């Protein structure tokens, strides 16, 4: 069964600095998709970035980028120039097209604290 692990329950970073959140996953599939979602105190789940496993190039969205290492089954999120508005829970999620349940598999989340 596929699993997603976020080993850091909480991380903190100084405003304007860079932070990396870790995510590892376990799968026997070769074709899949990975996502990072952000959940601020408003509780809204917001898609931050996505990565297709067949793409070697790491995805980037403005200050957010990923380090996707397929062989190591690692999918970390790097946030550059951290801002106070980045404070949130961050969830890593996995999906394979072969999953007939159509569901995303979720990590337990990492709470990111931004220090002013």
């Amino acid at each position, binding site marked *: 069964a596929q699993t997603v692990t976020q080993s850091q329950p909480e991380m903190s970073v100084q405003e304007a600095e860079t932070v990396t959140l870790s995510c590892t996953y376990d799968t026997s599939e070769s074709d899949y998709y990975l*996502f990072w979602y952000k959940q601020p105190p408003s*509780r809204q*789940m917001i*898609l931050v970035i996505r990565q297709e496993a067949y793409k070697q190039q790491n995805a980037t969205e403005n200050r957010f980028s990923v380090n996707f290492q397929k062989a190591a089954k690692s999918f970390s999120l790097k946030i550059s120039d951290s801002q106070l508005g980045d404070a949130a829970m961050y*969830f890593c999620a996995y999906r394979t097209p072969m999953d007939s*349940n*159509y*569901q995303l598999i*979720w990590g337990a989340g990492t709470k990111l604290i931004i220090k002013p």
Partner: protein
Amino acid sequence: DAGITQSPRHKVTETGTPVTLRCHQTENHRYMYWYRQDPGHGLRLIHYSYGVKDTDKGEVSDGYSVSRSKTEDFLLTLESATSSQTSVYFCAIRPGTSGTYEQYFGPGTRLTVT
């Protein structure tokens, strides 16, 4: 904004009472999901729907039922609420045109069962 609303946004109910949560979407997406979120568990899938009257169970479906009589509405019912069902409930949709399978979420419903 994926045009997803959930009602109610907050509810307190007593053990043993039935509760229905509503998810409404405005963009005719085929796939809809109900998740619950609890500390330390991320999101867990309760039920999902892949069309009108087409639904199936997720990993934590015991004690829950769903119905989808119209494309835009996906209802989650707790037949007899228990304290273990105190949680935040999220509805999500997957755009049918998305080749990457991401999901978009409603604002959530906080349910407290006393």
